[in-house]
């Protein structure tokens, strides 16, 4: 068997070292979807902590691709099996349906820093009063900051 030349062996070794520490590449879309899931989890915990308003959540997300929105809802259902999650096209109570907690992830987002993106989430636990939050996510897809952006009433 022919032994490869030494420079080639050294190059492979160096490459192996690089590969051993490089994190797997993630698409921007995968990162944003993971951030949105964590933002919604945070929103569910805020809404659930604000009192006994039922266990039905209507979630409005800005994804036009319904499969992406469905995947996010499926993950929420898996995370909170006791709650019901329904998709919502609009941020308002569905006519004729029992009241549920409304959560809307706004399509607007803002680059906040070298590794921080700010999203906006509206939550209404009583289908009348809305609290809009500004939530930041970091490079690890975690919710790293939260503040109340505004309060308003549904028309």
């Amino acid at each position, binding site marked *: 068997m022919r032994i490869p030349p030494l420079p080639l062996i050294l190059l492979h*070794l160096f490459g192996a*070292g690089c590969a*051993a*520490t490089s*994190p797997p590449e993630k698409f921007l879309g995968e990162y944003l979807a993971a951030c949105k899931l964590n933002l919604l989890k945070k929103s569910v915990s805020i809404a659930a902590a604000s009192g006994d308003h039922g266990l039905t959540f209507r979630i409005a997300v800005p*994804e036009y691709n319904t499969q992406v929105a469905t995947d996010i809802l499926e993950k929420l259902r898996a995370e909170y099996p006791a709650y019901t999650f329904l998709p919502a096209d609009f941020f308002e109570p569905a006519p004729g349906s029992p009241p549920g907690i409304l959560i809307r992830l706004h399509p*607007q*987002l803002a680059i906040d820093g070298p590794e921080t993106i700010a999203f906006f989430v509206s939550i209404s636990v009583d289908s009348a009063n809305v609290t809009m939050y*500004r939530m930041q996510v970091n490079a690890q897809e975690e919710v790293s900051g939260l503040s109340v952006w505004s309060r308003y009433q549904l028309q």
Partner: protein
Amino acid sequence: MSQMISRFLLLTAIGILFLCGCAFPSENVSMVDRLRDVQVQSAIGLIDIVKEELGDASCRNEIEFQISLFHLENSHPTEREKITARLRRLYPAYSFLDREAADGCFADSRSGRRIVIITIAETAVEGDGLISCGGTITYGSLGSSGFTFFFRENSGRFLLEKIQIANAIG
């Protein structure tokens, strides 16, 4: 004895080289940089549409582009400046406004040029490595046009796959 020492030295060299590879910083572009890249690519798409509709000469001599970010904050100067700076480098013959024009103001008193507002709107995840970004061109009294740009991500770069006309406001 000398053979053992040379083997020991060889193994040590191999170990050091592997550790060097581990320590070598991998060239990872941050997600924020990628998101900004999507926004810049969308702005380029919008400017190219204006160029096609009004002509290159008009874009060079009669128009001042204003970049606007569709955030819930009225303005996000640092981000707007970063994106505008990149567009200035890409379109050196075109004029870009440093500030946001006042609401409803489409003629800049300083330059006498007509202001065309390029608004970069929401970004949505489309799945399978596709990202979409909405954008609007506002021509003042001539109305606005909305577009959605679809990009496919490939090794951290975004390739324009298709453009959809979102709306046209006369």
